[in-house]
Structure formats: structure tokens, C-alpha cells
């Protein structure tokens, strides 16, 4: 067991973890933050995307011990009270989700993308989300949602 101390969605937490515990399972099983999903085992699908120190990261490919001392944001940490984060709002309004399993990952990947590039072109959006897979939407409305979020200044 190794002890870690990190800030998740603004709250500090300390825990002893098995070194092999991946960050995603730490978030889900230890902290009960079930919004972060696991969709593959090869760092491909991006369903587990969270922000580590404000950058998008696939939490299935980071051990919890590596996140020691970091600030982690999951989908649960985006809304402010009852107000959805502008990216969440845009996904909702543009019907950018169907089954919703990939959505938390896409939302966080979008938050990170827009932080690095606040006014992306369609090509930049598509390439910026290449690390996230969706089987339901054909990506069409996801791209529209990112454009809407960018317009809203997310």
C-alpha cells in the first residue's frame, strides 16, 4: 500500500492504495465518483477522461499513485450548483449524447480542448476529440455541441 493525497473536484482526499490501482478505479471505487466510465483496456476510447491539473488525461492509464499531489476534476466537479457547466449545457442542448456512456469523457476532453484552443475550427474539434470514441451519435452533434460551447465562451 502507498499513501496518496490529492484534490478531487476541490476536495482534498488522502488514502492508502495498492500501487496497481488505476486512477479511474480509485475515483469510482474509493471515492464513489461513478461518472467516470471505463470503455476499453488499451487507452483508446477516452470514456475515462478526467482533468489532471487542468489537462485531459485517460484515467485508465494513470496509476492513482502517479496522481499524488495533483488536482483532479471529474464530470461531477463541473457543474456549479444546479447550473451545468457550459460544455455540459451545450451537449444537452445539441442532443450530443444518446446512451451517454462516452459523454463524461467527451465533456472533459472538450473542456481541455477549449482551454487550449478557445475557437477551434471543425477540423480542430474533430482532431481534438480523436481520443474519444462514441458508437451512438456518429459525432455529428458532439461537434455541434463543442462549437456551441465555444461560442458560449466555455
Amino acid at each position, binding site marked *: 500500500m502507498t499513501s496518496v493525497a490529492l484534490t478531487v473536484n476541490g476536495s482534498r482526499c488522502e488514502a492508502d492504495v*495498492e500501487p*496497481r490501482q488505476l486512477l479511474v478505479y480509485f475515483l*469510482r471505487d474509493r471515492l464513489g465518483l*461513478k461518472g467516470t*466510465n*471505463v*470503455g*476499453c*483496456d*488499451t487507452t*483508446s*476510447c477516452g*470514456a475515462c477522461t478526467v482533468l489532471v491539473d487542468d489537462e485531459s488525461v485517460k484515467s485508465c492509464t494513470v496509476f492513482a499513485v502517479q496522481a499524488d499531489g495533483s488536482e483532479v476534476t471529474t464530470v461531477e466537479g463541473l457543474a456549479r450548483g444546479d447550473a451545468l457547466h457550459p460544455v455540459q449545457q451545450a451537449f444537452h442542448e445539441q*442532443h450530443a449524447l*444518446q*446512451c*451517454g*456512456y*462516452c459523454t463524461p469523457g467527451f465533456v472533459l476532453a472538450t473542456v481541455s480542448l477549449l482551454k487550449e484552443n478557445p475557437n477551434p475550427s*471543425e477540423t480542430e*474539434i*474533430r*482532431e481534438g*476529440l*480523436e*481520443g*474519444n*470514441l*462514441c*458508437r*451512438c*451519435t*456518429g*459525432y*455529428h*452533434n*458532439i*461537434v455541434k455541441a463543442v462549437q456551441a460551447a465555444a461560442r458560449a465562451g466555455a
Partner: protein
Amino acid sequence: MENLSLEGALTVTFVRSLLAHANIVDVDATAAEALPNVQVMTAADLDLGVFGPGFPDVNPSMGRPLLVVDRVRFVGDIIAIVISDDSATGADAAELVYVDYDQLPAVVSPHESAKDEALLFPEAGTNVATRAGSPEHDENLFDGCDVVVSGTFVSQRMAPCPLEARSAAAELGPDGRITAWLSTQTPHQDRTALAETLGLDPAQIRVVGLDVGGGFGAKTLNVEEVLVVWLARRLGRPVRWTETRSESMTALPHGRAASLEYTIGGTRDGKVLAYRLEVLQDCGAYASVGAVLPGLTGLMASGVYAIPRIEFESRSVVTNTTPVSAFRGAGRPEASQAIERAIDTFAAELGMDPAEVRRRNFIPTNAFPYTTASHAAYDSGDYEGALELALRSVGYDALRDEQRQRRERAATTQLGIGISCYVEITNGIAEIEFGEVEITRDGGAIVRTGSFSHGQGHETTFAMIAAERLGLPVEKVTVHKGDTDEVARGTGTYGSKSTQIGGAAARLAADDVLEVAKQLVGDYLEASPADIVLDPALGRLHVAGAHSLGISWADLALRASADGRLAELRAEHEFQAAAPTFPFGAHVAVVEVDTETGRVELRRLVAVDDAGTLINPLIAQGQVHGGIAAGVAQALYEDFVYDDDGNPLTGTFVGYAFPSSADLPSWEAVEMETPTPLNVLGAKGIGESGTIGATPAVHNAVVDALAPLGVRNVDLPANGENVWRALRKAKA
């Protein structure tokens, strides 16, 4: 599903075969069981029979044992079950279960399988699971044809890839009833199948479908779920299982996997007179749904064309690969892919524009209802209207000009334009669906449906349907589904049938509730129920012609509740349509092909999809978008492949080319609505249309781009390598 918390649940990990075909000599679980709280079970511990095939015409000896008894038949077949406290220990223990195999030659190609040389089920005496159509050839089929052309291609094997892999959990209650939480499309049918397989009364089983992360046809009851439920009963402890992605890639059934051979003949002026289609369907290791899908391919063989003579024949054979089942389209994409390639091949042979050949052969708009030579009874359609709308939307003539210019200057990157006109069958066996509407204490409504939603948005669409009938705001209506204890009956979601039968049942139940409400209002207002009408704008029932004499849903619910009569405001309705419906459309794809590297880039895809009346256009378009992406994925990217020994080569998302947003363009979806007379909503299915339309459009576009270089066909997926091979073959 994984978010379900289940106190004290044990974790199930399956030990799966690493070989495609072998006899099992021994299974040694000693080392695994030495890990803390680990128990291992094999077929010897099991008191259950075989699962499937479940279809009367399929060879009954090709069903799947729940646990392998003595022979594994594909990489992923289940040999043993590890039960542990957590999934990490389960993974550790599964590695320590030593299996002694006696390897057998693997049968990987369906063509090899069809020779019946090495048999997967020696007791069956054949690898053929079933046949459809007629093996008889009419020697005169192509009489009168000036031109007869043929072609072959493989509608390649695809992995359905719902983003949430499967998950199942089960718990035996103190009353002896078992609750199963499943990642499924079909909770009620799962209950029935569980009861049959486990030898239980269905009343002893409650199936709950929670939030399910996509299905695409693959998430119906399978051996894993049966084993989880069996274990919960056997162990008397709650158990759970969640599939890993690499497990899912070989354990979740695949789709397509059909080899197609077509011959088409007609006159020089472009009139098709005869068509023959042969299908060799790969069922995978055990015969189940995949075995019977060619029946749908045969039914839909004629496509949107009035073809006087059609012959169809199929054989379904087992191979040492993952079992094949339904995947988005299920049997109908193969029909469209074949006829649309055939029409293009015929047009190329005539030197005629493929749009023009289509125009000359469409079933005319005034011919519906229309029965094809392949025995499908189409309800309604306007095929030419769909094509003309698609051609206008894409700017067909300008694109042909651009293409001509590139061809004239022998540009490295050529332009291809591909057309696909399709018709498909939804609610294919005209099933029954259950709907119930109940007015709640606060004057809202609950819709209970036997249909299931795992991303299709029934929660919104069905609420809209009921809200509109009752004059309620849509947010006052909630949709309940998926719990067999709460929803009396149901068939679930597949075959694009939800709205047309489940939505219709909800609508009819809402109408029934309204009638009951009129009775009640009549009682309260001392008026005849026949004189009570609904003001849908206000959500208020009043005496006809006397607006002030009325009562709102909220007041009615309050009063009925106080009088103990609220329960009267509830109605069930089961709806069965007289026949399936036939959505249709036209897709036009524009591709650029690098004739040196073979790389294909899809530039545009215009899709006209007509699924009858749309209840919620936003949701319907979402279904079209996702459908198109799956169709394009087959046309350009995905292919589940095995080596000669039956080892999967694309068993993860790294190897399997599931496209991302960066690999696809935005879609240009154009709506068209031709209502069906077969249900009160006028709605047909929309979930699979995009897929069925898109693949042949893109496939035809790639071949079109390369036509001046002598290319007549490109294997699917039309990726860089397959394009390069086609070019090389054309040069040779």
C-alpha cells in the same frame, strides 16, 4: 450498470479459451483456488443444458453449452468460472487456471467450412446450420437479358462495440425470487429465456435493465448472463460480472460476416430483368441469430427496384470464430450492399449514369402496397422522390463536372460519387408491444413501456406521444421501462420497432386513459362522458361548448385521489401492427481517393431517410447520424479478422479500426416523411436505416473514383490496402 451497488457481491471472472478449436484434456484450478476466497467452477459443477440455437430450422446440435464440456470452438469460449471477492483477484486467479488443450485444426473460413471436411460438431455430420431460399437454379432466369454481369464481395465481420461492454448482476431474495440486473435490450425476453434455461417459473425472476450503454443488436441474453444468474442461486450470494473490452471483442457476438455473390441481367436501355443472390453466412462457433439473418437478406433482395425475376439461396455454416448475431441492420445491410453494387456494376457495363439506371427500375410511387419477386410486401414509398432530393442536395451535376476535370488531368487524388437507394424492413415479424399510461397524484402521467431504451431516447419520444394526447406538458410525463416487475409485458428493443409499436401502444393507452378520465369527469360534473372533451392546450377536460365547466388534470387527480378513484386513471394497451414497415431513402457519398497510397477520405455524405412520420426530429436525426457512422465504419474502416488458426487479430480497440470523430465528416441529413398506414403514428423505424443506406453509397463512391483506372470492385472495408490491391489487380 457497473454503478449498481450490491452489498457483499462476489465477482465473476470467466476463464476463456486461448485456442480456437481444441479438446479439453484437463482443467487444473489448484493454484487459482489457493488465492484468498477464490472458487473455480467448470462444466462438471453445472446442472444445465445447452443454450440455443432457439430457431426451429437451425440444426439443433449446434447450440452452445453454457460452459464448455470437452471441446472449445472459438477463442473466448468459456471453460471455467472464477468466483472471487474483487475483480483484481479474479484476474489474478483466472491466469492461474491451467487448461490442458489437445489442439484441433481450426476452421476459420466459411468457404472451407462449407466443404464439410473438418466438422465443428461431428455428431451433426455437417457444418451447415441452416439454409434459406432455393438451391434450384432456373436456367432461364436471365433469358431476354442483353447484359448479364456478376460480382462477389464479403460483407465483413464487425464487432458491435457498444461503449459500455456487458455487465450483469444477480441476487437471490429472501422470498426465493431472483433479481437480475442486465445490460440488455430485451428485459422481458431475457426473463423468459432465463426461466426456460434455468427451469424456473418466470414469476420467480425479476429482470431489471438499468442505464445501458448502447446495444446495437448484440445485447440480448447470452451464456454469461445465464451463468451469473445461475451462480447467484447456487451460491446464495449476490454475484456480478463486468466484461473487459478485450473480453468483449471476442465474447460479445459479432455481426455481418456474409459472403455474397450476385448476378444481374437486363436490357441495353437499362431495365433490370433478373437478379440472383447467393449468401454464405458465417455463424461463428455456435448457431444462433446469425444463422437465420440471411432470411432477411433474401426477403429484401429486390431493394427499391421492380425486378421481375429473383433467385435467392443461402447457407449458414459454423466456423471456429466468435458467434454471429444481430448488429445494426442485421441481414438487411447485406441485401442493400449486394443490390446496390449490382446496380452500379450493371450501369458501368452499360456505360450509363448509375442515377439513371436507378430511375429506370424504381418501384413506382403509385404502386404501393407492392410485393417484390423476393416476397416482401412494401407498405409505402417514394424511392424516386428520395433519390431526386438527395441528388439535388448534394449538387450531383457539379460533382460530376469536378470528377470529369480530375479524370481529364489524371489527378493523383480522384473524386468518387456513390449512390445508394435502399429500403429496409422494420418491426420485421410484426411483434406485439405493451404500453400503459397512469395519471399520477400530481396530475402528471407515467408511461410504462415494454420497449427498452439504451440511448434511443424513448424517455423523451414516448413522453411526447402521451403528453400530446393528454394535453400535458412533456415534463409532466415520465417513462418507465426495463423492470419486469413494474412493466407487465414487453418485447424490448431491436429491429427498429420501438416507436412504431411501443410508441403506438403508449399512444393508444393514453387514448384509453383519456376515455376513463372522461367517465370520471362526467361523474364529477354530472354530465355525460360523451359530452366531455379535452382542451389539449390547457390540459383540461370540460363539457363541450362550456369551457367554464371543466377540470384540469391536476385537480382531477387530486379529487380522484381523495375519492380513492385515482387507480381508475390507468390503462394498458397492447399494439400489434398488421405487418412490418419499410423505411427507405437515398444516400449519396463523395470520396477522395489517393490513387498512390489508396487512402480514402469521405468528403460528404448526404442522406435522405424516410421513416414515415417523425415524432421527435432531433432524436430521429441522432439515430440517422449514428446509423450512418456505423455504415461508414463498415465501408471504410472496420473488419474483425482472424489468422489461419482462428486467433483474433483485432481483439482490442487498438487493432479494431473503430473510427473517431477525426476520421469522419459531418453528415448532411435531409428529412422526408411518407407516413405508413400501418400504425396510428404513421411511424416506421429509423435506428438502422442510416447504416443500411450508408455502406453501399460509400462503397460505390470508392469504386466510382477508381473506375477510369479499370477497377470494378474494392473489397470492404475500402481502406488504403484494399484500394491498393484493387488498383494492382486492375493494372495486372
